[in-house]
Protein backbone atom coordinates (compact mmCIF):
# COMPACT_ATOMS: atom_id res chain seq x y z
CA UNK A 1 0.00 0.00 0.00
CA UNK A 2 1.56 3.29 -1.09
CA UNK A 3 1.65 5.84 1.71
CA UNK A 4 1.71 9.33 0.29
CA UNK A 5 2.04 11.91 2.99
CA UNK A 6 0.00 15.04 2.81
CA UNK A 7 1.02 18.51 3.91
CA UNK A 8 -0.09 17.69 7.42
CA UNK A 9 2.30 14.77 7.68
CA UNK A 10 -0.30 12.19 8.62
CA UNK A 11 -0.53 8.95 6.67
CA UNK A 12 -3.28 8.95 4.09
CA UNK A 13 -4.89 5.63 4.92
CA UNK A 14 -6.73 6.08 8.18
CA UNK A 15 -8.14 2.62 8.72
CA UNK A 16 -10.30 2.18 11.84
CA UNK A 17 -8.01 1.27 14.67
CA UNK A 18 -9.05 -2.29 15.31
CA UNK A 19 -6.78 -2.94 18.24
CA UNK A 20 -7.47 0.29 20.11
CA UNK A 21 -10.09 -0.89 22.56
CA UNK A 22 -9.15 -3.88 24.69
CA UNK A 23 -12.77 -4.69 25.35
CA UNK A 24 -14.01 -4.40 21.81
CA UNK A 25 -10.88 -4.73 19.75
CA UNK A 26 -9.37 -7.67 17.98
CA UNK A 27 -9.13 -10.74 20.03
CA UNK A 28 -7.18 -13.89 19.66
CA UNK A 29 -7.83 -17.04 21.56
CA UNK A 30 -10.96 -18.10 23.40
CA UNK A 31 -13.85 -15.64 23.48
CA UNK A 32 -14.66 -15.78 27.19
CA UNK A 33 -17.89 -13.85 26.97
CA UNK A 34 -19.25 -16.10 24.27
CA UNK A 35 -18.23 -19.22 26.17
CA UNK A 36 -19.96 -17.94 29.27
CA UNK A 37 -23.05 -17.13 27.24
CA UNK A 38 -23.21 -20.56 25.66
CA UNK A 39 -22.81 -22.27 29.04
CA UNK A 40 -25.51 -20.08 30.54
CA UNK A 41 -27.90 -20.87 27.67
CA UNK A 42 -27.32 -24.59 27.96
CA UNK A 43 -27.84 -24.39 31.72
CA UNK A 44 -31.06 -22.44 31.29
CA UNK A 45 -32.41 -24.86 28.68
CA UNK A 46 -31.60 -27.88 30.82
CA UNK A 47 -33.19 -26.30 33.85
CA UNK A 48 -36.26 -25.25 31.92
CA UNK A 49 -36.81 -28.63 30.36
CA UNK A 50 -35.95 -30.96 33.20
CA UNK A 51 -35.96 -29.12 36.47
CA UNK A 52 -38.89 -26.77 36.23
CA UNK A 53 -42.42 -27.86 37.01
CA UNK A 54 -44.89 -27.98 34.17
CA UNK A 55 -47.65 -25.43 34.38
CA UNK A 56 -50.86 -27.20 35.32
CA UNK A 57 -53.16 -25.05 33.23
CA UNK A 58 -51.11 -24.27 30.17
CA UNK A 59 -49.17 -27.47 29.70
CA UNK A 60 -45.65 -28.19 28.55
CA UNK A 61 -45.82 -25.65 25.75
CA UNK A 62 -45.73 -22.95 28.38
CA UNK A 63 -42.02 -23.57 28.64
CA UNK A 64 -41.56 -21.72 25.41
CA UNK A 65 -42.16 -18.64 27.54
CA UNK A 66 -38.61 -18.95 28.89
CA UNK A 67 -37.41 -18.39 25.36
CA UNK A 68 -40.02 -15.93 24.16
CA UNK A 69 -39.95 -13.29 26.88
CA UNK A 70 -36.17 -12.93 27.33
CA UNK A 71 -35.81 -12.77 23.55
CA UNK A 72 -38.44 -10.01 23.48
CA UNK A 73 -36.77 -8.01 26.24
CA UNK A 74 -33.36 -8.28 24.63
CA UNK A 75 -34.46 -7.94 21.01
CA UNK A 76 -36.98 -5.18 21.42
CA UNK A 77 -35.79 -3.07 24.27
CA UNK A 78 -32.06 -3.52 24.30
CA UNK A 79 -31.20 -4.05 20.64
CA UNK A 80 -33.69 -1.56 19.24
CA UNK A 81 -32.88 0.88 22.00
CA UNK A 82 -29.18 0.66 21.14
CA UNK A 83 -29.97 1.08 17.46
CA UNK A 84 -32.06 4.18 18.09
CA UNK A 85 -29.60 5.81 20.45
CA UNK A 86 -26.54 5.14 18.30
CA UNK A 87 -28.31 6.42 15.18
CA UNK A 88 -29.10 9.72 16.87
CA UNK A 89 -25.61 9.91 18.38
CA UNK A 90 -23.99 9.33 15.01
CA UNK A 91 -25.72 12.33 13.51
CA UNK A 92 -24.33 14.41 16.33
CA UNK A 93 -20.83 12.95 16.69
CA UNK A 94 -19.78 11.45 13.40
CA UNK A 95 -17.79 8.60 14.89
CA UNK A 96 -17.63 5.46 12.79
CA UNK A 97 -17.57 3.27 15.88
CA UNK A 98 -21.05 4.44 16.77
CA UNK A 99 -22.19 3.53 13.29
CA UNK A 100 -20.73 0.04 13.59
CA UNK A 101 -22.49 -0.36 16.93
CA UNK A 102 -25.79 0.56 15.27
CA UNK A 103 -25.23 -1.99 12.52
CA UNK A 104 -24.32 -4.75 14.96
CA UNK A 105 -27.31 -4.01 17.22
CA UNK A 106 -29.63 -4.13 14.25
CA UNK A 107 -28.29 -7.47 13.05
CA UNK A 108 -28.34 -9.18 16.43
CA UNK A 109 -31.67 -7.58 17.29
CA UNK A 110 -33.17 -8.97 14.10
CA UNK A 111 -32.23 -12.48 15.21
CA UNK A 112 -33.73 -12.07 18.67
CA UNK A 113 -36.89 -10.53 17.28
CA UNK A 114 -37.04 -13.46 14.90
CA UNK A 115 -37.04 -15.75 17.91
CA UNK A 116 -39.97 -13.80 19.34
CA UNK A 117 -41.86 -14.04 16.07
CA UNK A 118 -41.37 -17.81 15.81
CA UNK A 119 -41.99 -18.73 19.44
CA UNK A 120 -45.07 -16.50 19.66
CA UNK A 121 -47.07 -18.31 16.98
CA UNK A 122 -45.97 -21.72 18.29
CA UNK A 123 -47.43 -20.76 21.64
CA UNK A 124 -50.44 -19.21 19.95
CA UNK A 125 -51.13 -22.32 17.90
CA UNK A 126 -51.25 -24.52 20.93
CA UNK A 127 -53.29 -22.25 23.15
CA UNK A 128 -55.57 -20.35 20.73
CA UNK A 129 -55.60 -22.84 17.90
CA UNK A 130 -54.33 -20.32 15.40
CA UNK A 131 -50.80 -19.41 14.25
CA UNK A 132 -51.32 -15.68 14.12
CA UNK A 133 -54.00 -13.66 15.91
CA UNK A 134 -52.79 -10.08 15.59
CA UNK A 135 -52.01 -9.96 19.25
CA UNK A 136 -50.77 -6.50 20.22
CA UNK A 137 -47.19 -7.25 21.20
CA UNK A 138 -46.55 -9.73 18.43
CA UNK A 139 -47.93 -7.33 15.85
CA UNK A 140 -45.74 -4.51 17.09
CA UNK A 141 -42.77 -6.84 17.03
CA UNK A 142 -43.56 -7.78 13.45
CA UNK A 143 -43.57 -4.16 12.33
CA UNK A 144 -40.35 -3.47 14.18
CA UNK A 145 -38.78 -6.53 12.62
CA UNK A 146 -39.73 -5.26 9.16
CA UNK A 147 -38.35 -1.85 10.06
CA UNK A 148 -34.98 -3.23 11.16
CA UNK A 149 -34.88 -5.44 8.08
CA UNK A 150 -35.44 -2.38 5.88
CA UNK A 151 -32.65 -0.63 7.80
CA UNK A 152 -30.25 -3.46 7.02
CA UNK A 153 -31.32 -3.60 3.36
CA UNK A 154 -30.64 0.14 3.13
CA UNK A 155 -27.17 -0.38 4.57
CA UNK A 156 -26.53 -3.07 2.01
CA UNK A 157 -27.60 -0.85 -0.86
CA UNK A 158 -25.34 2.14 -0.22
CA UNK A 159 -21.81 1.80 -1.52
CA UNK A 160 -19.83 4.57 0.11
CA UNK A 161 -19.11 3.98 3.79
CA UNK A 162 -19.65 7.58 4.80
CA UNK A 163 -23.00 7.82 3.00
CA UNK A 164 -24.07 4.48 4.40
CA UNK A 165 -23.41 5.57 7.96
CA UNK A 166 -25.11 8.91 7.49
CA UNK A 167 -28.23 7.67 5.66
CA UNK A 168 -28.85 4.73 7.95
CA UNK A 169 -28.42 7.01 10.96
CA UNK A 170 -31.21 9.19 9.56
CA UNK A 171 -33.43 6.16 9.15
CA UNK A 172 -32.53 4.85 12.59
CA UNK A 173 -33.36 8.17 14.23
CA UNK A 174 -36.73 8.38 12.50
CA UNK A 175 -37.41 4.76 13.42
CA UNK A 176 -36.84 5.67 17.06
CA UNK A 177 -39.60 8.27 16.75
CA UNK A 178 -41.86 5.77 15.02
CA UNK A 179 -41.85 3.09 17.72
CA UNK A 180 -44.27 4.81 20.15
CA UNK A 181 -46.65 5.47 17.26
CA UNK A 182 -46.66 1.83 16.25
CA UNK A 183 -47.36 0.73 19.82
CA UNK A 184 -50.15 3.25 20.10
CA UNK A 185 -51.74 2.30 16.81
CA UNK A 186 -51.63 -1.42 17.52
CA UNK A 187 -52.98 -0.92 21.03
CA UNK A 188 -55.88 1.18 19.78
CA UNK A 189 -56.60 -1.37 17.10
CA UNK A 190 -56.63 -4.21 19.57
CA UNK A 191 -58.76 -2.13 21.90
CA UNK A 192 -61.56 -2.42 19.41
CA UNK A 193 -61.44 -6.20 19.13
CA UNK A 194 -61.47 -8.69 21.99
CA UNK A 195 -58.00 -9.97 22.52
CA UNK A 196 -57.10 -13.62 22.84
CA UNK A 197 -55.76 -14.60 26.24
CA UNK A 198 -52.23 -13.49 26.01
CA UNK A 199 -48.92 -14.71 27.26
CA UNK A 200 -48.71 -12.31 30.16
CA UNK A 201 -45.89 -13.37 32.39
CA UNK A 202 -46.08 -10.35 34.63
CA UNK A 203 -49.60 -10.96 35.75
CA UNK A 204 -49.85 -14.41 37.26
CA UNK A 205 -47.80 -14.96 40.34
CA UNK A 206 -45.09 -17.36 39.30
CA UNK A 207 -43.88 -19.96 41.76
CA UNK A 208 -40.30 -19.57 42.85
CA UNK A 209 -38.93 -22.38 40.65
CA UNK A 210 -40.36 -20.81 37.54
CA UNK A 211 -39.10 -17.40 38.51
CA UNK A 212 -35.60 -18.76 38.98
CA UNK A 213 -35.67 -20.44 35.60
CA UNK A 214 -36.95 -17.26 34.07
CA UNK A 215 -34.16 -15.30 35.75
CA UNK A 216 -31.57 -17.73 34.46
CA UNK A 217 -32.96 -17.53 30.94
CA UNK A 218 -32.88 -13.74 31.15
CA UNK A 219 -29.24 -13.70 32.21
CA UNK A 220 -28.33 -16.25 29.55
CA UNK A 221 -29.96 -14.20 26.81
CA UNK A 222 -28.32 -11.01 27.99
CA UNK A 223 -24.91 -12.67 27.92
CA UNK A 224 -25.67 -14.14 24.50
CA UNK A 225 -26.78 -10.78 23.15
CA UNK A 226 -23.67 -8.94 24.24
CA UNK A 227 -21.41 -11.76 23.09
CA UNK A 228 -23.00 -11.76 19.65
CA UNK A 229 -22.98 -7.96 19.58
CA UNK A 230 -19.30 -7.83 20.29
CA UNK A 231 -18.60 -10.51 17.72
CA UNK A 232 -20.51 -8.63 15.03
CA UNK A 233 -18.89 -5.36 16.05
CA UNK A 234 -15.43 -6.81 15.66
CA UNK A 235 -16.38 -8.28 12.32
CA UNK A 236 -17.67 -4.93 11.01
CA UNK A 237 -14.50 -3.21 12.25
CA UNK A 238 -12.33 -5.63 10.30
CA UNK A 239 -14.55 -5.39 7.24
CA UNK A 240 -14.39 -1.60 7.20
CA UNK A 241 -10.64 -1.59 7.81
CA UNK A 242 -10.17 -3.92 4.88
CA UNK A 243 -12.38 -1.79 2.64
CA UNK A 244 -10.41 1.33 3.60
CA UNK A 245 -7.13 -0.38 2.79
CA UNK A 246 -8.42 -1.60 -0.55
CA UNK A 247 -9.58 1.82 -1.63
CA UNK A 248 -6.50 3.75 -0.46
Amino acid sequence: MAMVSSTTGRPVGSAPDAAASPLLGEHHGVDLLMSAAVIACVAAVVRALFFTPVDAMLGAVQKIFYLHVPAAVVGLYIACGLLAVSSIMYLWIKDDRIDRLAESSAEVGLVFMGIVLTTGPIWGRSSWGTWWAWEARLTSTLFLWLLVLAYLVLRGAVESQESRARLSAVMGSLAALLVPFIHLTVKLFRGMHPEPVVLAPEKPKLPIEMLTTFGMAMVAFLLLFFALLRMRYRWTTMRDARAALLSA
Partner: protein
Amino acid sequence: MLAHDRPTRTVPPSDHANAAPVLAPILEARAVVRRFGGRAAVDGVSLTLRAGDCLALFGPNGAGKTTLLRLLGGLIKPTRGEVCLAGHTLPGDGATRRLVGLISHHTMLYAALTARENIRFAAECQGVLDVEGETTRVLTHLQVLDRADTPVRSLSRGLQQRVSIARALVHRPRLVLLDEPYTGLDDVGASALTEALRDAQQDGAALVLITHHLHEGLALATDTAIMLNGRFAYTKQAGAHGIDVTAYQQQYRSLVSEGAA
Protein backbone atom coordinates in the same frame (compact mmCIF):
# COMPACT_ATOMS: atom_id res chain seq x y z
CA MET B 1 -1.30 33.62 -6.66
CA LEU B 2 -0.78 29.95 -6.30
CA ALA B 3 0.89 28.69 -3.16
CA HIS B 4 3.58 31.33 -3.34
CA ASP B 5 3.33 34.70 -1.73
CA ARG B 6 2.47 37.57 -3.96
CA PRO B 7 2.24 41.13 -2.70
CA THR B 8 -1.26 42.56 -2.71
CA ARG B 9 -1.67 45.06 -5.48
CA THR B 10 -1.77 48.54 -4.01
CA VAL B 11 -1.94 51.93 -5.67
CA PRO B 12 1.22 54.06 -5.24
CA PRO B 13 0.23 57.60 -4.23
CA SER B 14 1.68 59.15 -7.38
CA ASP B 15 -0.74 57.30 -9.68
CA HIS B 16 -3.76 59.01 -11.17
CA ALA B 17 -7.21 58.87 -9.69
CA ASN B 18 -8.75 56.16 -11.84
CA ALA B 19 -6.09 53.52 -11.12
CA ALA B 20 -7.30 50.03 -10.08
CA PRO B 21 -8.44 49.95 -6.44
CA VAL B 22 -7.14 47.32 -3.99
CA LEU B 23 -8.60 44.01 -5.07
CA ALA B 24 -9.66 41.74 -2.27
CA PRO B 25 -9.46 38.09 -3.21
CA ILE B 26 -12.73 36.55 -4.27
CA LEU B 27 -11.62 33.01 -3.50
CA GLU B 28 -9.02 31.74 -1.08
CA ALA B 29 -8.17 28.15 -0.29
CA ARG B 30 -5.75 27.32 2.51
CA ALA B 31 -4.15 23.85 2.72
CA VAL B 32 -7.40 22.17 1.74
CA VAL B 33 -7.60 18.41 2.20
CA ARG B 34 -10.56 16.19 1.40
CA ARG B 35 -10.62 12.47 2.15
CA PHE B 36 -13.06 9.84 1.02
CA GLY B 37 -12.69 6.82 3.26
CA GLY B 38 -8.97 6.17 3.35
CA ARG B 39 -8.08 8.10 0.24
CA ALA B 40 -7.22 11.80 0.01
CA ALA B 41 -8.73 13.09 -3.22
CA VAL B 42 -7.42 16.57 -2.54
CA ASP B 43 -4.24 16.57 -0.53
CA GLY B 44 -3.17 20.06 0.50
CA VAL B 45 -4.10 22.72 -2.06
CA SER B 46 -3.83 26.45 -1.55
CA LEU B 47 -4.80 29.21 -3.95
CA THR B 48 -5.99 32.80 -4.21
CA LEU B 49 -8.13 34.23 -6.96
CA ARG B 50 -9.10 37.83 -7.56
CA ALA B 51 -11.72 39.42 -9.77
CA GLY B 52 -11.03 38.74 -13.43
CA ASP B 53 -8.64 35.86 -12.72
CA CYS B 54 -9.05 32.58 -14.49
CA LEU B 55 -7.37 29.47 -13.11
CA ALA B 56 -7.07 26.74 -15.72
CA LEU B 57 -6.76 23.36 -14.04
CA PHE B 58 -5.29 20.45 -15.97
CA GLY B 59 -4.51 16.91 -14.97
CA PRO B 60 -5.23 13.26 -15.68
CA ASN B 61 -8.48 11.60 -14.63
CA GLY B 62 -8.65 10.89 -10.94
CA ALA B 63 -6.23 13.67 -10.03
CA GLY B 64 -8.80 15.31 -7.79
CA LYS B 65 -9.82 18.22 -10.02
CA THR B 66 -13.58 17.68 -9.73
CA THR B 67 -13.34 17.23 -5.97
CA LEU B 68 -11.35 20.45 -5.71
CA LEU B 69 -13.98 22.23 -7.75
CA ARG B 70 -16.77 21.01 -5.50
CA LEU B 71 -14.78 22.15 -2.49
CA LEU B 72 -14.27 25.58 -4.00
CA GLY B 73 -17.98 25.85 -4.73
CA GLY B 74 -19.01 24.88 -1.21
CA LEU B 75 -20.81 21.73 -2.37
CA ILE B 76 -18.70 19.60 -0.05
CA LYS B 77 -16.78 20.37 3.14
CA PRO B 78 -13.02 20.02 3.40
CA THR B 79 -11.65 17.38 5.80
CA ARG B 80 -8.94 19.83 6.72
CA GLY B 81 -8.17 23.41 5.74
CA GLU B 82 -10.46 26.21 4.72
CA VAL B 83 -12.08 27.76 1.67
CA CYS B 84 -13.21 31.39 1.77
CA LEU B 85 -15.45 32.94 -0.84
CA ALA B 86 -15.72 36.73 -0.71
CA GLY B 87 -14.70 36.60 2.92
CA HIS B 88 -17.21 33.93 3.95
CA THR B 89 -16.00 30.48 4.99
CA LEU B 90 -17.55 27.76 2.92
CA PRO B 91 -19.94 26.03 3.05
CA GLY B 92 -21.85 29.16 3.72
CA ASP B 93 -25.49 30.07 3.66
CA GLY B 94 -27.70 30.90 0.71
CA ALA B 95 -26.19 34.33 0.22
CA THR B 96 -22.75 32.82 -0.27
CA ARG B 97 -24.03 30.07 -2.55
CA ARG B 98 -25.58 32.66 -4.82
CA LEU B 99 -22.14 33.98 -5.66
CA VAL B 100 -21.25 30.73 -7.41
CA GLY B 101 -22.16 29.50 -10.87
CA LEU B 102 -21.51 25.82 -11.49
CA ILE B 103 -21.04 24.20 -14.88
CA SER B 104 -20.14 20.55 -15.34
CA HIS B 105 -20.31 17.97 -18.08
CA HIS B 106 -23.66 16.96 -16.62
CA THR B 107 -26.14 19.48 -17.90
CA MET B 108 -28.02 19.88 -14.60
CA LEU B 109 -31.14 20.52 -16.65
CA TYR B 110 -34.64 19.10 -16.42
CA ALA B 111 -35.13 17.22 -19.68
CA ALA B 112 -38.89 17.70 -19.79
CA LEU B 113 -38.76 21.49 -19.49
CA THR B 114 -37.76 23.92 -22.21
CA ALA B 115 -34.48 25.81 -22.22
CA ARG B 116 -36.25 28.98 -21.22
CA GLU B 117 -38.11 27.26 -18.36
CA ASN B 118 -34.92 25.73 -17.05
CA ILE B 119 -33.10 29.04 -17.04
CA ARG B 120 -36.09 30.87 -15.65
CA PHE B 121 -36.26 28.39 -12.78
CA ALA B 122 -32.55 28.80 -12.06
CA ALA B 123 -32.96 32.59 -12.10
CA GLU B 124 -35.91 32.42 -9.69
CA CYS B 125 -34.05 30.12 -7.34
CA GLN B 126 -31.14 32.56 -7.29
CA GLY B 127 -33.34 35.53 -6.47
CA VAL B 128 -32.79 37.33 -9.77
CA LEU B 129 -35.08 40.35 -9.97
CA ASP B 130 -35.66 40.69 -13.69
CA VAL B 131 -36.15 37.00 -14.44
CA GLU B 132 -37.41 37.38 -18.01
CA GLY B 133 -34.86 39.98 -18.98
CA GLU B 134 -31.86 38.10 -17.64
CA THR B 135 -33.12 34.82 -19.11
CA THR B 136 -33.35 36.36 -22.57
CA ARG B 137 -29.95 37.98 -22.09
CA VAL B 138 -28.12 34.72 -21.44
CA LEU B 139 -30.08 32.84 -24.08
CA THR B 140 -28.98 35.42 -26.64
CA HIS B 141 -25.42 35.43 -25.38
CA LEU B 142 -25.05 31.68 -25.77
CA GLN B 143 -26.84 31.83 -29.11
CA VAL B 144 -29.67 29.50 -28.23
CA LEU B 145 -32.53 32.00 -28.26
CA ASP B 146 -34.13 30.48 -31.34
CA ARG B 147 -34.41 27.06 -29.63
CA ALA B 148 -35.42 28.46 -26.26
CA ASP B 149 -38.90 27.01 -26.27
CA THR B 150 -38.01 23.46 -27.21
CA PRO B 151 -37.92 20.82 -24.49
CA VAL B 152 -34.31 20.26 -23.55
CA ARG B 153 -34.43 16.57 -24.33
CA SER B 154 -35.02 17.38 -28.02
CA LEU B 155 -31.87 19.47 -28.20
CA SER B 156 -28.51 18.13 -29.31
CA ARG B 157 -25.82 17.55 -26.71
CA GLY B 158 -23.97 20.70 -27.75
CA LEU B 159 -27.05 22.87 -27.47
CA GLN B 160 -27.90 21.34 -24.12
CA GLN B 161 -24.45 22.24 -22.91
CA ARG B 162 -24.95 25.83 -24.01
CA VAL B 163 -28.27 26.00 -22.17
CA SER B 164 -26.54 24.61 -19.11
CA ILE B 165 -23.91 27.33 -19.31
CA ALA B 166 -26.62 29.96 -19.68
CA ARG B 167 -28.33 28.52 -16.60
CA ALA B 168 -25.14 28.91 -14.59
CA LEU B 169 -24.52 32.50 -15.68
CA VAL B 170 -28.02 33.97 -15.49
CA HIS B 171 -27.55 35.32 -11.96
CA ARG B 172 -24.16 36.90 -12.74
CA PRO B 173 -22.09 34.88 -10.28
CA ARG B 174 -18.83 36.19 -8.79
CA LEU B 175 -17.18 32.80 -9.08
CA VAL B 176 -17.76 30.53 -12.04
CA LEU B 177 -16.68 26.90 -11.68
CA LEU B 178 -16.44 24.93 -14.88
CA ASP B 179 -15.86 21.19 -15.04
CA GLU B 180 -14.95 20.26 -18.61
CA PRO B 181 -17.49 22.62 -20.18
CA TYR B 182 -16.08 22.31 -23.69
CA THR B 183 -17.10 18.63 -23.86
CA GLY B 184 -19.49 18.12 -26.74
CA LEU B 185 -19.35 21.71 -27.98
CA ASP B 186 -18.83 22.43 -31.65
CA ASP B 187 -16.84 25.45 -32.86
CA VAL B 188 -19.78 27.82 -32.61
CA GLY B 189 -20.59 26.63 -29.14
CA ALA B 190 -16.98 26.75 -28.01
CA SER B 191 -16.51 30.33 -29.16
CA ALA B 192 -19.84 31.35 -27.65
CA LEU B 193 -18.69 29.88 -24.36
CA THR B 194 -15.30 31.58 -24.50
CA GLU B 195 -17.00 34.88 -25.27
CA ALA B 196 -19.44 34.49 -22.38
CA LEU B 197 -16.59 33.64 -20.02
CA ARG B 198 -14.51 36.61 -21.17
CA ASP B 199 -17.50 38.85 -20.50
CA ALA B 200 -17.92 37.36 -17.06
CA GLN B 201 -14.22 37.95 -16.39
CA GLN B 202 -14.57 41.56 -17.45
CA ASP B 203 -17.61 41.86 -15.25
CA GLY B 204 -15.31 41.03 -12.34
CA ALA B 205 -15.97 37.32 -11.91
CA ALA B 206 -13.22 34.81 -11.13
CA LEU B 207 -13.15 31.53 -13.02
CA VAL B 208 -11.86 28.07 -12.26
CA LEU B 209 -11.80 26.01 -15.41
CA ILE B 210 -11.11 22.29 -15.60
CA THR B 211 -10.54 21.20 -19.14
CA HIS B 212 -8.67 18.75 -21.31
CA HIS B 213 -8.77 21.27 -24.17
CA LEU B 214 -5.40 22.90 -23.64
CA HIS B 215 -5.96 25.60 -26.26
CA GLU B 216 -9.21 26.94 -24.86
CA GLY B 217 -7.94 26.67 -21.33
CA LEU B 218 -4.73 28.57 -21.96
CA ALA B 219 -6.54 31.20 -24.01
CA LEU B 220 -8.59 32.31 -21.03
CA ALA B 221 -6.17 31.59 -18.21
CA THR B 222 -4.37 34.11 -16.03
CA ASP B 223 -3.04 31.25 -13.91
CA THR B 224 -2.62 27.57 -14.64
CA ALA B 225 -2.01 24.47 -12.56
CA ILE B 226 -1.45 20.82 -13.32
CA MET B 227 -2.94 18.60 -10.67
CA LEU B 228 -1.60 15.14 -9.82
CA ASN B 229 -2.66 12.89 -6.96
CA GLY B 230 -4.55 15.65 -5.21
CA ARG B 231 -1.83 18.29 -5.27
CA PHE B 232 -0.65 21.02 -7.60
CA ALA B 233 2.38 19.47 -9.30
CA TYR B 234 3.08 22.48 -11.48
CA THR B 235 1.83 26.04 -11.57
CA LYS B 236 2.47 28.85 -14.01
CA GLN B 237 1.14 32.34 -14.38
CA ALA B 238 0.26 33.71 -17.78
CA GLY B 239 2.55 36.50 -18.78
CA ALA B 240 1.58 39.45 -20.97
CA HIS B 241 1.66 37.30 -24.11
CA GLY B 242 -0.23 34.33 -22.71
CA ILE B 243 1.27 30.84 -22.49
CA ASP B 244 2.89 28.86 -25.26
CA VAL B 245 0.64 25.89 -25.89
CA THR B 246 3.26 23.51 -27.26
CA ALA B 247 5.66 24.11 -24.40
CA TYR B 248 2.88 23.64 -21.90
CA GLN B 249 1.79 20.45 -23.60
CA GLN B 250 5.28 19.04 -23.27
CA GLN B 251 5.43 20.04 -19.64
CA TYR B 252 2.11 18.32 -19.04
CA ARG B 253 3.13 15.12 -20.79
CA SER B 254 6.39 14.77 -18.93
CA LEU B 255 4.76 15.42 -15.57
CA VAL B 256 1.97 12.94 -16.13
CA SER B 257 4.27 10.17 -17.31
CA GLU B 258 6.51 10.89 -14.34
CA GLY B 259 3.59 10.66 -11.99
CA ALA B 260 2.42 7.40 -13.52
CA ALA B 261 5.86 5.82 -13.15
